[in-house]
């Protein structure tokens, strides 16, 4: 792909806040449909819907503020560039509910949206490069839980909780979700979100 334009840095870029505002996770499902946008100015996903075709349901994982971070490390070898992404977040207090949440993350192929405090929706585990050409469910560049560290702490003012890391290896830069995200469509106490 040839270089077609440069890039500007504006005041708003310089004022952007760090950190993550929301973390949404869902399991890849048969019938999922993803719409990729590949233009000179957009490397994004405009829609993620499930087999119903109208939206996809995600689960919202809350965390201790200022604990989550998304990191991306790209490395090029020969003509291939791989991107290792990691999203780490801390679920405070090691309770049975948190343990049950970890159990559900252990053996599924997932996709993750990390909504930054700058308003950008970063997608892990959904990439077009080397995706299955006929069935999106067979995409092998999914996200998985690559680590979980629990600690009770020792001192009274130590943290108690789980730090979960969602990782993904893919062969294109992280895409941004530009479709609609609806948080908590079920109302208070139902920790879901939808994309369309």
């Amino acid at each position: 792909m040839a270089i077609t334009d440069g890039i500007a840095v504006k005041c708003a870029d310089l004022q952007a806040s760090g950190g993550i505002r929301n973390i949404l996770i869902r399991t890849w499902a048969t019938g999922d449909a993803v719409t990729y946008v590949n233009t000179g100015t957009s490397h994004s996903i405009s829609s993620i819907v499930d087999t119903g075709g109208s939206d996809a349901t995600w689960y919202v994982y809350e965390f201790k503020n200022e604990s989550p971070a998304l990191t991306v490390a790209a490395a090029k070898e020969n003509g291939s560039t791989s991107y290792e992404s990691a999203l780490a977040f801390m679920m405070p207090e090691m309770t049975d509910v948190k343990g049950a949440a970890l159990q559900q993350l252990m053996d599924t192929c997932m996709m993750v949206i990390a909504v930054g405090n700058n308003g950008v929706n970063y997608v892990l585990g959904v990439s077009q490069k080397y995706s299955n050409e006929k069935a999106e469910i067979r995409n092998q560049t999914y996200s998985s839980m690559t680590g979980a560290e629990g600690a009770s702490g020792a001192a009274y003012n130590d943290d108690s909780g789980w730090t979960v890391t969602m990782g993904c290896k893919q062969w294109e830069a992280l895409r941004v979700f530009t479709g609609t995200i609806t948080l908590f469509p079920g109302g208070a106490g139902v920790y879901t979100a939808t994309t369309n």
Partner: protein
Amino acid sequence: MAIADGLAINCSDLQAVGGTRIIALRAWADGDVVSYDNTTHGINSILETASAATWGVYESRIESSSLTVSGTDEGKDTTTYECTLAFFIPGFTQAQFLRIFQLDGTCLMALVIDNNDNTSGTTAPSATFASNKVIGVSERFENQDDAVRNQTYARLASVEGGTGSAFSDEIGVTVTITCTQYEAPRAYEGTIVLGATGLTLTTAA
């Protein structure tokens, strides 16, 4: 054959990526017709009883499959090319063993499509399948009467793997397809159509 030209290496060659995109296997069948192109060292078409030939697509874990070619010239006018295609199938399931068992005792041809139909910056799957190699289909020393009696076919050489022992061990098998032929692998230049499920493809002119 006299040397008629040299060989250039361009940026796109240096940016080429490894690995395979699609592995398709097919058993030689009565009525197969192969059309060779010796100008490009390609294959114009592989047909079965004058119609498009159907292949099975064997998916594998990404970055696990490779085609290696080792040519040896012993000073005669014949160079031997040992071609080895290996790919890893994760799971160790009954359905997978059934598919592997079907390769047993069969004279095969293999079509290996690599990842270089698009530049590395392009993400959408290519609509073409031009960057490919065929093993088990060669004109050198073929049967001149009937293509199906070509003795330079590919075959299942080994199936290695297992359950592993630790929970974090890999479970699955590495399938190896080999072929000894007496010309370098050719590229398929005809039409390749991937089936709707992604588990079959057809070759035609």
